[in-house]
């Protein structure tokens, strides 16, 4: 294990609120270790700022294990930074060169209005889930868990898309600000499972239409897949479109029987 110390220059976005004018601020971090995480570097910056009587940089973060999806950050123009399949909180300074100049910005998408500095409001994702991203199974009365065998391949495929952490990198990376990868990941998770069949077509319809209320349209750039910290495949978008088309072009009562 190396113990290299690096000097880093940060160009970091500051903006007091949604209506305020933003600008880049330059800060220098001396002698950061390879073992430090990217967010620990920001902790050090903030501690220095507070001790100097200045306001700390606001950024979203929580679990620091790459699973809660709270952290964000555009790092040198890439959502979650340069390491593939890695959320910002799991990014470590060994990924950067000594004397690097790193640009840090918030997610930029009209559906994610800025709150302050690097923090944005991603509630539009919750609205999509609220519109249909669930299986209706009220508490109590569930049948035995082993009643319906589910092929391992099906359960595994459902799990692949269920891994989505809802961070919004897909939207931030998309030139159109589309949320198709996020929405399709949930559709694919639930629509692939036997338990999800009863609401399969109503689910995809309401979720897609709620998504369209907030987000841009998908034009198959594939940037979302490249930015996704869970490496969710854009195949799920095709599955969502297929189910949406079926829902729209057929008699829904018929579909429910299939």
């Amino acid at each position, binding site marked *: *294990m190396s113990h290299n110390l690096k000097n880093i220059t940060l160009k970091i976005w500051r903006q007091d609120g949604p209506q305020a004018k933003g600008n880049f601020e330059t800060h220098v971090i001396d002698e950061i270790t390879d*073992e430090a995480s990217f967010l620990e570097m920001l902790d050090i910056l903030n501690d220095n700022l507070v001790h100097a009587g200045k306001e700390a940089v*606001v950024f979203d973060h929580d679990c620091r294990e790459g699973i809660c999806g709270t952290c964000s950050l555009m790092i040198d123009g890439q959502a979650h930074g340069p390491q593939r399949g890695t959320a910002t909180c799991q990014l470590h300074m060994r990924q950067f060169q000594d004397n690097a100049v790193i640009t840090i910005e918030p997610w930029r998408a009209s559906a994610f209005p800025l709150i302050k500095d690097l923090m944005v409001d991603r509630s539009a994702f919750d609205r999509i889930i609220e519109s249909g991203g*669930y299986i209706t*199974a*009220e*508490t*109590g009365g569930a*049948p035995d868990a082993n009643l319906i065998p589910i092929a391992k391949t099906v359960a595994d495929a*459902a799990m692949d898309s269920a891994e989505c952490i809802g961070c919004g990198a897909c939207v931030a990376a998309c030139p159109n600000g589309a949320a198709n990868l996020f929405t399709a990941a949930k559709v694919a998770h639930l629509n692939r499972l036997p338990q999800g069949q009863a609401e399969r077509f109503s689910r995809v319809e309401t979720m897609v239409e709620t998504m369209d209320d907030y987000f841009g349209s998908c034009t198959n750039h594939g940037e979302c897949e490249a930015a996704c910290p869970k490496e969710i495949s854009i195949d799920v978008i095709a599955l969502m479109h297929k189910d949406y088309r079926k829902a729209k072009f057929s008699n829904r009562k018929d579909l429910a029987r299939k």
Partner: protein
Amino acid sequence: MSLTDQLLTQNTVQLDSKIPAGPMAEKWTSYKENMKLVNPNNKRKFKVIVVGTGLAGASAAATMAELGYQVDAFTFHDSARRAHSIAAQGGINGAKNYKGDGDSIHRLFYDTVKGGDFRAREANVHRLAENSVDIIDQMVAQGVPFAREYGGLLDNRSFGGAQVSRTFYARGQTGQQLLLGAYQQFSRQVGLGGIRLFNRTELIDIVVIDGHASGIVVRDLVTGELQSHAAHAVVLATGGYGNAFFLSTNAMACNVTAAWRAHRKGALFANPCYTQIHPTCIPQSDDSQSKLTLMSESLRNDGRVWVPTNPNETRPAHEVPENERDYYLERLYPSFGNLAPRDISSRAAKRLVDKGQGVGPKKNGVYLDFADAINRLGRDVVEERYGNLFEMYERIAGENPYEQPMRIYPASHYTMGGLWVDYELMTNIPGLYAAGEANFSDHGANRLGASALMQGLSDGYFVLPYTIGNYLAPMLNKSIPGTDHPEFKAAEEAARLRFNGYLSTGGTKSPDHFHRELGKIIWDYCGMERTKEGLTKALSDLPALYEEFKTDLCVTGNGESMNQTLEKAGRVDDFFQLGMLMCRDALDREESCGGHFRSEYQTEEGEALRDDENYCHVSAYQWGGDPMKPNLNVEKLEFEEVHLATRSYK
């Protein structure tokens, strides 16, 4: 006269655990048959506040909204999907006996009571084991993609402290999948109007009027605005207090504020010294580290824990010959081996590291080696089981665990202590409930693996929705105080003064600085091993540091916009007061049990030595106005089903 005798006033509150009569296995059924009910059409007349949207909070809010109650849910996160339940990796226990290996509700109950070192309330634990079966059914119905075998049935794995396979899992992300399941059910109710969601909103105080919980005061984190909310009942599902140690596996925002503010309003805080140190975390690498990362206990199914026998070993792990390795868990605890419970495994690792046998650049870890498993099962199978954990390890430690063993060390992970609750999960304040990690009741002095998810969901899905009706039924059509009541105004004013106080201290040190210093004291003296001497020192260091916090704190920015430094100041303030109570409780409990290990009380082999004669009780503290002078109340623990015995895993 010892320090303890001087300061603890005893039995100021009459504690009634309300355990139903009858045989252990029938208590919960009999409770449900005899509780008061609220007619479905009347449920909408009641408002319930749920604070926290983790497993316990989301499942409770969703279920109560389905029943028809008006639910207001609060989270300080941006979304209800972020709570730290999401980070649980390994699994959830369910006494399904799908493996036909002799599991049963009784056995899960027994394992949990024994695992908790006979310091949990039996009746609560039995109910938990009963509900474990329904939880698995419920979560599968909601589409949680648990791991399956090729035939399509659910797969199970083993966890520490159990000799059967009863743990259901979804890769290494079981907590995530369960929380998303509960979050989706919760979101459905938000969409249907059954739940009003307040995100980025933090609880600042509880309002108690005429002895009943009547509402809460919250702070909108985006605007800094203080708001009051009134309700018929308040549920706190706000998690544990492991971040008192500063370095822990908890998420950065986890804090004790909700429970602590309830405590200051009269709710008893039980067993604060019962904290769990998890044996398999990635060791600290440098001083700027902000948190520790857990590697799931499930890894111990296939990984072997060892250290070199020679403290001066310098060769890389794979060059150390077999006869110079000490597989100490297999040696000391042959029947449980690498799956010995968490407290026992943690202490064993600490002893070897303290003896200088640690590994890694700071010699602060032990090896968790997969070489044998890879040889036996093949790399593919190991990857299938633990792939995402191996990747996570490599990202953090910069080493590939397929090629060299992981380095692990214990870290603060879970807190068994919490708000005192009765069988109905109600605190001693009528109408105030605590669920999940925020309460104290089910894990005794040590929690077994894969039981936290089980308890959160049991409380939220299958306990609270019943027991809360029993409290609300007699309140039908009676008016409750509104937010214009003077008590709400007084609580708002106190909160305003508190936050203005942090902003105007005008000192020189950040809240993070104080949190780090505070954590160091608690870890050193109230961590894996405690002594009378150390705790006494902590109890003199903590108030001194707290004084410094009050006079030398520096919070920049203002109170009218998003200010994470200010949020942190409030949380650290509460951690200071809690820290004193933790040390006070650890000092008072002159025995070793589970996660509470007092060096003075151990067997010749170095195992925990309980004192059932004097300490077979719950210590529940009442706020006395000074964090150094709490009042101690005792709930005696009776064991009818499981006989008190020395806990042995040999």
